């Protein structure tokens, strides 16, 4: 369980104030923070804002039926794994089947037996905790402790959506260790691993806390730089490139390691560039950096006309 100052949130969506009062009284001693709402629409907003550990959801509500709320919760990528316990006054098999088919974790009929309800809430909290642990583990690269490709994909999709909505600056950087195979072949895989872990550390330490650094695969890394145009992003990437070049490697002090970086980004303004096109442009810029001698940063800017390659180093 998290510590007291970050109790897991239990979101209760039910149109009866009597039920809210009962649940508050009966769940008082549970290590959860209760967030209550009487309306399904507001419940969805609260769920998106508060990231609850578990949702208790009534079915028979005016305006928005519980099943409609459940469907939206399960269609939202960031909420789809939150366990939902359906609270219903209807003890009918077809409602239970529908609830489970829509993704509910549990189904409790009113009036509640409170010992049972508490036990079911605890079971769902345990499930929620394990799912969160799994999500975290599944998105972390074991060697570098950076986010992995899955973590990158999830964040990238969000950032591109934000860019399309608000037209804020955004840049993505793809980087690749130059002649990395040679390090592995000459000094062995432990030396190669050390290079990757050290590059990861340099990148993390050089980037701002708002940047998202992930291992893209092999010796490739990727940085999402939200609210950052290509000019500022290029300055950060130049510092990373210089720091890697200046590193002295204990296992091979005479063998320098360098990296090539390709950037694709836009200053403020709306673009219709898709996430995939954006990555493709960064990848092309990286290819150009490699072709033109390595150990350099190449920038591709999205203007109104589309990507425009300009050699920057």
């Amino acid at each position, binding site marked *: 369980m998290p510590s007291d100052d970050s109790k897991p949130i239990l979101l209760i969506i039910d*149109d*009866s104030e*009597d*039920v809210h*009062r*009962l649940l*508050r*009284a*009966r769940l*008082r001693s549970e290590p959860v923070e209760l967030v209550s709402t009487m309306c399904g629409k507001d419940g969805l907003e609260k769920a998106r804002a508060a990231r609850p550990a578990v949702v208790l959801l009534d079915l*028979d509500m*005016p305006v928005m039926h519980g099943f409609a709320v459940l469907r939206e919760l399960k269609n939202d990528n960031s909420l789809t794994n939150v366990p939902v316990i359906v*609270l219903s*006054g209807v003890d009918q098999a077809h409602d239970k089947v529908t609830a489970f088919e829509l993704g509910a974790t549990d189904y409790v009929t*009113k*009036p*509640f037996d*409170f010992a049972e309800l508490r036990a079911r809430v605890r079971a769902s909290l345990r499930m929620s905790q394990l799912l969160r642990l799994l999500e975290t583990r599944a998105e972390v690269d074991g060697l570098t402790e950076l986010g992995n490709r899955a973590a990158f994909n999830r964040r990238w999709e969000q950032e591109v959506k934000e860019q399309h909505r608000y037209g804020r600056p955004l840049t993505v950087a793809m980087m690749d260790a130059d002649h990395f195979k040679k390090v592995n072949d000459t000094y062995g895989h432990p030396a190669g691993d050390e290079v990757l872990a050290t590059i990861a550390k340099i990148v993390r330490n050089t980037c701002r806390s708002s940047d998202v650094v992930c291992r893209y695969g092999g010796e490739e890394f990727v940085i999402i730089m939200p609210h950052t145009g290509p000019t500022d992003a290029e300055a950060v990437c130049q510092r990373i490139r210089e720091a890697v070049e200046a590193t002295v490697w204990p296992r091979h002090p005479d063998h320098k390691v360098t990296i090539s970086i390709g950037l694709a980004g836009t200053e403020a303004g709306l673009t219709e560039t898709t996430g995939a096109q954006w990555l493709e442009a960064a990848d092309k810029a990286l290819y150009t950096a490699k072709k033109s001698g390595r150990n350099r940063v190449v920038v591709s800017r999205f203007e109104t006309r589309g990507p425009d390659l300009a050699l920057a180093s």
Partner: protein
Amino acid sequence: MASSPITVTNDPIRSEFANDPDMAEIVSMFVSEMPEKIANLNKTFQAMQFDELRRLAHQIKGSSGGYGFSELGKAAGRLEHLLVTHGEGGGDGDPVANIRREFEQLIALCKRVTA
């Protein structure tokens, strides 16, 4: 569903959780709000808003047991059932008369509720 006999007693109904210190406060709140619920039920019944009446009965069914008034919850459940059947075009004999009988019984029980 067979109609149940009309209850004639006026004895107060106490919460099954009357001695539970965790519940005392919210049980008395539930009881103090009962006149408002009764007024709302009456208004809805008189306006023949049966779907809204069904929703109110459904809420009372769902919460009363939790406050230790399971008899009230069961009566609300019977009224809800009749209203659902009526809404689907079913019901034996004179459905509205049956609804009225269950409705009156529920109101009688509501009036007897005490903390």
